[in-house]
């Protein structure tokens, strides 16, 4: 089926077809959401092999549990949540969080993040993947997915303070990465 027909089909038709077990509809749903969800998986896993496994596992969960979707929120949000949970579940063992003092969180101002605006998504993704699993999980969940610290604490099985401190540390590391990158580019331009 072509990409055009994929976009013509409404979300509800797609969902209905998938619930009935129509393989063609399931394929359309996969093609519609897989690019975004693969990006999510990459952000959490850090490598393409794990991301591929997560993508497969996530879509199987979606097709099995699609009948549970009641249409309360956005369908994409529901799908994304499944992928985030699958990713977290998959890497829970790798995430060893350390408690740090909450005061560290306020050490970075939001305006300092403007440097990231100048970077391409691919580069930002690369930097995020260089973070340790704990920092990466909390950063992704809070900054990009918009989870509250309470939600993060519940999902990861930590307390809110730990979530906040992990985020602060992640931001600090990222800031250093951006600074180093900027320094490198400035040095390169000077040398030229």
């Amino acid at each position, binding site marked *: 089926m072509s990409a055009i027909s994929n976009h013509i089909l409404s979300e509800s038709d797609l969902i209905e077809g998938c619930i009935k*077990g129509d*393989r063609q509809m*399931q*394929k359309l749903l*996969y*093609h519609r959401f*897989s*690019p*975004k*969800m*693969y*990006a999510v998986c*990459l*952000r959490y896993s850090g490598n*393409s092999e794990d991301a*591929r496994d997560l*993508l*497969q596992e996530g*879509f*199987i969960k979606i*097709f*099995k549990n699609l009948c549970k979707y009641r249409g309360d929120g956005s369908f994409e949000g529901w799908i994304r949540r499944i992928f985030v949970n699958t990713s977290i579940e998959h890497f829970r063992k790798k995430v060893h969080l350390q408690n740090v003092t909450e005061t560290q969180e306020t050490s970075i101002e*939001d305006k300092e*993040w*403007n440097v*990231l*605006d100048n970077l391409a*998504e691919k580069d*930002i*993704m690369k930097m*995020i993947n260089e973070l340790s699993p704990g920092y990466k999980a909390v950063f992704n969940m809070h*900054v*990009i*997915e*918009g989870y509250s610290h309470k939600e993060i604490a519940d999902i990861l099985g930590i307390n809110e303070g730990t979530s906040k401190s992990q985020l602060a540390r992640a931001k600090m590391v990222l800031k250093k990465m951006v600074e180093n990158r900027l320094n490198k580019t400035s040095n390169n331009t000077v040398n030229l």
Partner: protein
Amino acid sequence: MDNVKNRMYNYETTPPEGVWKAIAAELDRNEVKVIPMVKTRNNTFYYIAAASVIIILFCLIFFTNRSSKSANEQLVTSSSNDKTQSDTEVNNNVIMTVPIEEKTILKNNTDTDELLAQNKLQKSGPNQKQNKEVIKKTDSTDNNLILSNTTSRYITIEGPQGQPVKVSSKMATLIDSSETKVSSKPVWNKKINEWREIMKSNTLTPTPGNFLDIVELTKTLKDNK
């Protein structure tokens, strides 16, 4: 910051090829697996039910057999008991009735007033308790022990020399009645006394087959005398 968030949130990357095929294959496998056609049963219930049916049947057969056996035995003994009990008013006998495979001892007694004979020969469970010994002893002058095997219709009489003489229970009743003081039929009493004397002195064990031979022998002996 929000700008970064939105960009990263909507960021898309082309997934590797072959993922959809793997998903489809996995879904196909699950569809085959999922449908359980027959609900698995808990066989324990059926085993218990079968065992209880067998036990109930066994009990039914067992108790039915017992009751029928005891009924038969009652029929056998009742005929002798009827006679015995009818004679009890005039007879001075003591009957010891013991459960099956034991022996009933009849004691001829001239002084006793009663004969208590509840010759219940049931062997089965609760009836076995009812199968009590009824013993009424009185002073005896002449102790001719009549031993009867309650399982059979025959009674073993102890002769004067202590030899066992097997006679039918009816015969034993007749012998007993011959010793009574009051006799309704003197002619019979006389005959019975004669038979009794012969049998006491006889070492032959009578059977239903040779009983008439004994009578014949008696006649011959009489003639010889």
